[in-house]
């Protein structure tokens, strides 16, 4: 970032030279750096989406728009208030994947996904009540949308997310 230069136009030469000398960067010793980084505690991998979750949820509630249906293959809804939905994403190099959405308060620890036998696909089955749900995949801390689902309008709020609509029992 370019920063405005201090008002040195009328500064005497001796002072300009002194300031130039003082601006020389300090060498960062390797040992100092290594010691510092060793002291930094491990931060639990917790996607920043948690900070945005209230906004996303509020947007989903308040806007009530963007009710596009994701590409669903549902043929039937089995009785009861919740339907079982399988979410699946291909992430061969990921170390940790979870499903986040308004149904789990966007908590990446709530619904971890399991790596399938192919070693590349992560899957989880969840039970969702009828209605519209905004969701995303937390892949090693980064939010990923589902390319086969509709994007949520809440993207404008900084949360990449997809939409799934779970039909009511007996309905389409």
């Amino acid at each position, binding site marked *: 970032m370019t920063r405005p230069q201090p008002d040195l136009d009328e500064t005497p030469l001796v002072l300009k030279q002194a300031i130039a000398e003082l601006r020389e960067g*300090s060498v960062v010793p390797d040992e100092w750096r290594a010691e510092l980084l060793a002291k930094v505690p491990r931060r639990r*991998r917790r996607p920043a989406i948690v900070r945005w979750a209230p906004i996303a949820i509020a947007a989903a509630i308040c806007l009530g728009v963007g009710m596009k249906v994701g590409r669903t293959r549902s043929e039937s809804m089995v009785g009861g208030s919740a339907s079982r939905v*399988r979410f699946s994403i291909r992430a061969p190099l990921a170390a940790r994947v979870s499903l986040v959405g308004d149904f789990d308060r966007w908590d990446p620890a709530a619904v971890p996904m399991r790596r399938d036998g192919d070693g590349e696909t992560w899957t989880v089955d969840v039970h969702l009540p009828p209605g519209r749900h905004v969701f995303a995949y937390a892949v090693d801390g980064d939010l990923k949308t589902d390319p086969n689902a509709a994007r949520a309008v809440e993207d404008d709020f900084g949360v990449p997310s997809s939409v799934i609509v779970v039909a009511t029992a007996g309905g389409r």
Partner: protein
Amino acid sequence: MSSLARPTQLFTGDVTGAATAEVPLVGMTDGALVRRTLDGDARAFTELVDRHASACLRYATRMLGERSDAEDVAQETFLRAFKALESYDEALPFRTWLFSILINRCRTAMTQRMRRERRVVFDNDALERSTVEATQVAVELREELAKAIAALPPDQREAFLLRHVEDLSYEEIMSVTGAGMSALKMRVKRACERLQQLLAEGVRR
């Protein structure tokens, strides 16, 4: 009843490893690095350290006049910043926010050693460079400069370094020091005058 035999809906996505495993951090803004650090990416905080450690060590060394003290204070600053990262507001440049912590740590360090005899110890790295790069005259000038900086009252030294060495705007200095604009300008003005006088005459002790 929720004992379902098979999923009723199937969603599939595709995420390549390039987007997840080794995302290049070099081009990222400080704000993005902070977010990644909060996400648990340790590399992002290392990148922040690498970007700002030199300036922090420079300021602390100039402010405290003691390299080992400066290294302690700079380390403490980064560790405190790490713990307080959730409170960082991207409306403020990260470096300014980091300096607000550094300034307080320097003030604390100066308070703690108030009863110790003031010593002027130079930046060893700069001196090592100087033996290679500069003439003996230049070394002496550098030593005089360090002594002159150390001779300034702490509040003037702080304002002068932040304005003229670290290039913070007066508005930024106000936000991180709590001092008023007119007071800051007066401190910088007096520091410049005093430095000019000391450098012209030689350091008096």
